[in-house]
Protein backbone atom coordinates (compact mmCIF):
# COMPACT_ATOMS: atom_id res chain seq x y z
CA UNK A 1 0.00 0.00 0.00
CA UNK A 2 1.33 3.43 -0.85
CA UNK A 3 0.84 6.90 0.56
CA UNK A 4 -2.08 9.21 -0.16
CA UNK A 5 -1.02 12.85 -0.44
CA UNK A 6 -3.54 15.66 -0.18
CA UNK A 7 -2.89 19.18 -1.49
CA UNK A 8 -5.31 21.88 -0.42
CA UNK A 9 -3.62 25.04 -1.68
CA UNK A 10 -3.78 26.68 -5.07
CA UNK A 11 -0.48 26.21 -6.92
CA UNK A 12 -0.56 29.84 -8.00
CA UNK A 13 0.22 31.22 -4.57
CA UNK A 14 1.77 28.29 -2.69
CA UNK A 15 4.48 25.78 -3.32
CA UNK A 16 2.59 22.91 -1.67
CA UNK A 17 1.71 21.23 -4.96
CA UNK A 18 5.26 21.44 -6.31
CA UNK A 19 6.79 20.15 -3.09
CA UNK A 20 4.25 17.34 -2.96
CA UNK A 21 4.84 16.25 -6.55
CA UNK A 22 8.59 16.20 -5.97
CA UNK A 23 8.25 13.99 -2.90
CA UNK A 24 5.43 11.66 -3.96
CA UNK A 25 6.79 8.25 -4.87
CA UNK A 26 5.81 6.24 -7.94
CA UNK A 27 2.56 4.40 -7.32
CA UNK A 28 1.22 6.89 -4.80
CA UNK A 29 -1.87 9.07 -5.21
CA UNK A 30 -2.19 12.84 -4.94
CA UNK A 31 -5.66 14.06 -4.08
CA UNK A 32 -6.41 17.73 -4.81
CA UNK A 33 -8.88 19.23 -2.35
CA UNK A 34 -10.17 22.70 -1.44
CA UNK A 35 -8.19 25.35 -3.34
CA UNK A 36 -5.84 22.64 -4.55
CA UNK A 37 -8.35 21.58 -7.21
CA UNK A 38 -7.27 24.49 -9.43
CA UNK A 39 -4.22 22.37 -10.28
CA UNK A 40 -6.46 19.83 -12.01
CA UNK A 41 -7.20 22.12 -14.92
CA UNK A 42 -5.72 22.04 -18.40
CA UNK A 43 -4.06 25.12 -19.85
CA UNK A 44 -2.43 26.54 -16.73
CA UNK A 45 1.25 27.15 -16.09
CA UNK A 46 1.19 24.07 -13.83
CA UNK A 47 -0.55 21.68 -16.23
CA UNK A 48 2.67 20.27 -17.64
CA UNK A 49 4.13 19.74 -14.17
CA UNK A 50 0.99 17.82 -13.19
CA UNK A 51 0.94 15.80 -16.42
CA UNK A 52 4.59 14.94 -15.98
CA UNK A 53 3.95 13.72 -12.43
CA UNK A 54 1.02 11.66 -13.72
CA UNK A 55 3.44 9.37 -15.53
CA UNK A 56 4.19 7.80 -12.13
CA UNK A 57 1.51 8.88 -9.72
CA UNK A 58 -2.27 9.06 -9.82
CA UNK A 59 -3.84 12.51 -9.56
CA UNK A 60 -7.40 12.73 -8.30
CA UNK A 61 -9.58 15.78 -7.58
CA UNK A 62 -12.35 16.15 -5.03
CA UNK A 63 -15.45 16.81 -7.15
CA UNK A 64 -17.39 18.84 -4.56
CA UNK A 65 -14.48 21.32 -4.44
CA UNK A 66 -14.31 21.52 -8.28
CA UNK A 67 -18.06 22.13 -8.43
CA UNK A 68 -17.99 24.72 -5.66
CA UNK A 69 -15.44 26.76 -7.58
CA UNK A 70 -17.16 26.37 -10.95
CA UNK A 71 -14.09 24.71 -12.43
CA UNK A 72 -15.29 21.17 -13.02
CA UNK A 73 -14.51 21.47 -16.72
CA UNK A 74 -11.47 21.42 -18.95
CA UNK A 75 -9.60 19.15 -16.58
CA UNK A 76 -6.30 17.53 -17.42
CA UNK A 77 -6.95 14.27 -19.21
CA UNK A 78 -6.64 11.36 -16.81
CA UNK A 79 -7.38 13.26 -13.61
CA UNK A 80 -10.05 11.22 -11.82
CA UNK A 81 -12.72 12.68 -9.58
CA UNK A 82 -14.07 11.39 -6.28
CA UNK A 83 -16.69 12.51 -3.81
CA UNK A 84 -16.16 12.47 -0.01
CA UNK A 85 -16.92 8.75 0.11
CA UNK A 86 -14.25 8.26 -2.53
CA UNK A 87 -11.84 10.38 -0.46
CA UNK A 88 -12.49 8.03 2.46
CA UNK A 89 -11.84 5.03 0.21
CA UNK A 90 -8.55 6.46 -0.97
CA UNK A 91 -7.46 7.02 2.63
CA UNK A 92 -8.58 3.54 3.66
CA UNK A 93 -6.70 1.94 0.78
CA UNK A 94 -3.44 3.79 1.45
CA UNK A 95 -0.79 2.92 4.00
CA UNK A 96 -0.81 6.45 5.39
CA UNK A 97 -1.94 9.97 4.49
CA UNK A 98 0.21 13.09 4.23
CA UNK A 99 -1.41 16.52 4.01
CA UNK A 100 0.54 19.21 2.14
CA UNK A 101 -0.85 22.33 3.79
Amino acid sequence: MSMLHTVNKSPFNHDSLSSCLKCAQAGSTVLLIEDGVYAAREGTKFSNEVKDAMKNIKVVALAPDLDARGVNNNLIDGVEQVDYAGFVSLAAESHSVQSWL
Partner: protein
Amino acid sequence: MHLLIFDSNHNNNKRYRNVKFGIVVNEGPYQHQASDTAYHFTKAALDNGHEIFRVFFYHDGVNNGTNLSTPPQDDRNVSLRWTQLAKEHDLDLVVCVAAAQRRGIVDQGEMERNGKPAMNIADGFRISGLGQLIEAGIQADRLLTFGD
Protein backbone atom coordinates in the same frame (compact mmCIF):
# COMPACT_ATOMS: atom_id res chain seq x y z
CA MET B 1 -9.42 -5.40 11.38
CA HIS B 2 -10.33 -4.92 7.71
CA LEU B 3 -12.94 -6.78 5.71
CA LEU B 4 -11.65 -6.61 2.17
CA ILE B 5 -14.20 -6.74 -0.63
CA PHE B 6 -12.75 -6.42 -4.08
CA ASP B 7 -14.38 -3.59 -5.94
CA SER B 8 -12.70 -1.24 -8.37
CA ASN B 9 -15.08 1.68 -7.83
CA HIS B 10 -13.67 4.12 -5.27
CA ASN B 11 -16.94 5.96 -5.08
CA ASN B 12 -19.05 3.23 -3.57
CA ASN B 13 -16.43 2.57 -0.92
CA LYS B 14 -17.08 -1.13 -0.42
CA ARG B 15 -13.43 -1.98 -0.62
CA TYR B 16 -12.37 -1.65 3.00
CA ARG B 17 -14.72 -1.76 5.98
CA ASN B 18 -14.15 -0.67 9.54
CA VAL B 19 -10.97 1.32 9.12
CA LYS B 20 -10.33 3.38 12.22
CA PHE B 21 -9.58 7.02 11.38
CA GLY B 22 -8.00 9.73 13.49
CA ILE B 23 -8.89 13.25 12.34
CA VAL B 24 -6.89 16.39 13.14
CA VAL B 25 -8.43 19.82 12.55
CA ASN B 26 -5.92 22.65 12.61
CA GLU B 27 -8.07 25.63 11.65
CA GLY B 28 -11.04 27.43 13.10
CA PRO B 29 -14.56 27.62 11.70
CA TYR B 30 -15.23 29.78 8.61
CA GLN B 31 -11.72 31.23 8.21
CA HIS B 32 -10.51 28.14 6.36
CA GLN B 33 -12.29 25.24 4.70
CA ALA B 34 -10.36 22.75 6.83
CA SER B 35 -13.08 22.16 9.42
CA ASP B 36 -15.71 21.75 6.70
CA THR B 37 -13.64 19.24 4.75
CA ALA B 38 -12.85 17.35 7.96
CA TYR B 39 -16.54 17.25 8.82
CA HIS B 40 -17.59 15.92 5.40
CA PHE B 41 -14.81 13.33 5.47
CA THR B 42 -15.79 12.24 8.98
CA LYS B 43 -19.45 11.97 8.04
CA ALA B 44 -18.66 10.01 4.87
CA ALA B 45 -16.43 7.64 6.81
CA LEU B 46 -19.18 6.96 9.35
CA ASP B 47 -21.85 6.59 6.64
CA ASN B 48 -19.67 3.99 4.95
CA GLY B 49 -19.11 1.75 7.93
CA HIS B 50 -15.80 3.09 9.24
CA GLU B 51 -14.89 4.19 12.72
CA ILE B 52 -13.65 7.55 13.95
CA PHE B 53 -11.22 7.03 16.82
CA ARG B 54 -11.04 10.73 17.70
CA VAL B 55 -11.30 14.18 16.18
CA PHE B 56 -8.52 16.33 17.65
CA PHE B 57 -8.66 20.09 17.34
CA TYR B 58 -5.31 21.93 17.41
CA HIS B 59 -3.98 25.42 16.61
CA ASP B 60 -6.96 27.63 15.73
CA GLY B 61 -8.97 24.43 15.30
CA VAL B 62 -9.86 24.73 19.00
CA ASN B 63 -12.21 27.55 18.00
CA ASN B 64 -14.54 24.97 16.49
CA GLY B 65 -15.36 24.12 20.10
CA THR B 66 -17.08 27.41 20.95
CA ASN B 67 -20.74 27.58 21.93
CA LEU B 68 -20.85 31.34 21.38
CA SER B 69 -20.95 31.49 17.62
CA THR B 70 -24.03 32.89 15.85
CA PRO B 71 -23.52 32.42 12.14
CA PRO B 72 -26.09 33.75 9.62
CA GLN B 73 -29.28 31.70 9.41
CA ASP B 74 -28.71 30.81 5.76
CA ASP B 75 -25.27 29.30 6.33
CA ARG B 76 -24.00 26.21 8.10
CA ASN B 77 -23.25 26.32 11.81
CA VAL B 78 -19.80 24.71 11.89
CA SER B 79 -19.54 24.23 15.66
CA LEU B 80 -23.09 23.00 16.09
CA ARG B 81 -22.63 20.59 13.20
CA TRP B 82 -19.74 18.94 15.03
CA THR B 83 -21.80 18.82 18.24
CA GLN B 84 -24.64 17.12 16.40
CA LEU B 85 -22.40 14.62 14.62
CA ALA B 86 -20.70 13.78 17.91
CA LYS B 87 -24.04 13.16 19.58
CA GLU B 88 -25.36 11.03 16.71
CA HIS B 89 -22.25 8.83 16.52
CA ASP B 90 -20.79 9.13 20.04
CA LEU B 91 -17.65 10.80 18.69
CA ASP B 92 -14.71 11.86 20.83
CA LEU B 93 -14.08 15.53 19.99
CA VAL B 94 -10.97 16.73 21.80
CA VAL B 95 -9.73 20.30 22.01
CA CYS B 96 -6.06 20.72 22.94
CA VAL B 97 -5.73 22.35 26.36
CA ALA B 98 -2.65 24.45 25.58
CA ALA B 99 -4.05 25.75 22.29
CA ALA B 100 -7.43 26.35 23.97
CA GLN B 101 -5.89 28.34 26.81
CA ARG B 102 -4.12 30.60 24.32
CA ARG B 103 -7.29 31.19 22.33
CA GLY B 104 -9.94 31.32 25.05
CA ILE B 105 -11.88 28.08 24.72
CA VAL B 106 -12.82 27.35 28.31
CA ASP B 107 -14.63 24.58 30.15
CA GLN B 108 -15.75 24.54 33.80
CA GLY B 109 -12.43 23.23 35.07
CA GLU B 110 -10.36 25.72 33.10
CA MET B 111 -12.65 28.56 34.16
CA GLU B 112 -12.16 27.74 37.84
CA ARG B 113 -8.43 26.95 37.59
CA ASN B 114 -7.54 30.06 35.63
CA GLY B 115 -10.02 32.51 37.18
CA LYS B 116 -11.95 33.19 33.99
CA PRO B 117 -15.35 34.93 34.10
CA ALA B 118 -17.07 32.45 31.80
CA MET B 119 -16.88 29.14 30.01
CA ASN B 120 -17.74 28.57 26.37
CA ILE B 121 -17.01 25.00 25.37
CA ALA B 122 -19.65 23.55 23.06
CA ASP B 123 -21.52 20.33 23.85
CA GLY B 124 -19.76 17.22 22.74
CA PHE B 125 -16.27 18.70 22.96
CA ARG B 126 -13.81 18.05 25.79
CA ILE B 127 -10.51 19.73 26.60
CA SER B 128 -7.47 17.49 27.00
CA GLY B 129 -3.76 17.25 26.35
CA LEU B 130 -1.63 16.72 23.26
CA GLY B 131 -1.12 13.13 24.34
CA GLN B 132 -4.61 12.48 22.95
CA LEU B 133 -3.34 13.47 19.49
CA ILE B 134 -0.35 11.14 19.71
CA GLU B 135 -2.59 8.36 20.99
CA ALA B 136 -4.86 8.88 17.99
CA GLY B 137 -1.83 8.49 15.72
CA ILE B 138 -0.90 5.25 17.45
CA GLN B 139 -4.37 3.70 17.83
CA ALA B 140 -6.01 4.73 14.55
CA ASP B 141 -5.32 2.91 11.30
CA ARG B 142 -5.00 6.23 9.45
CA LEU B 143 -4.46 9.78 10.73
CA LEU B 144 -5.57 12.66 8.52
CA THR B 145 -4.78 16.34 9.03
CA PHE B 146 -7.03 19.13 7.78
CA GLY B 147 -5.41 22.54 7.99
CA ASP B 148 -4.01 25.51 6.23
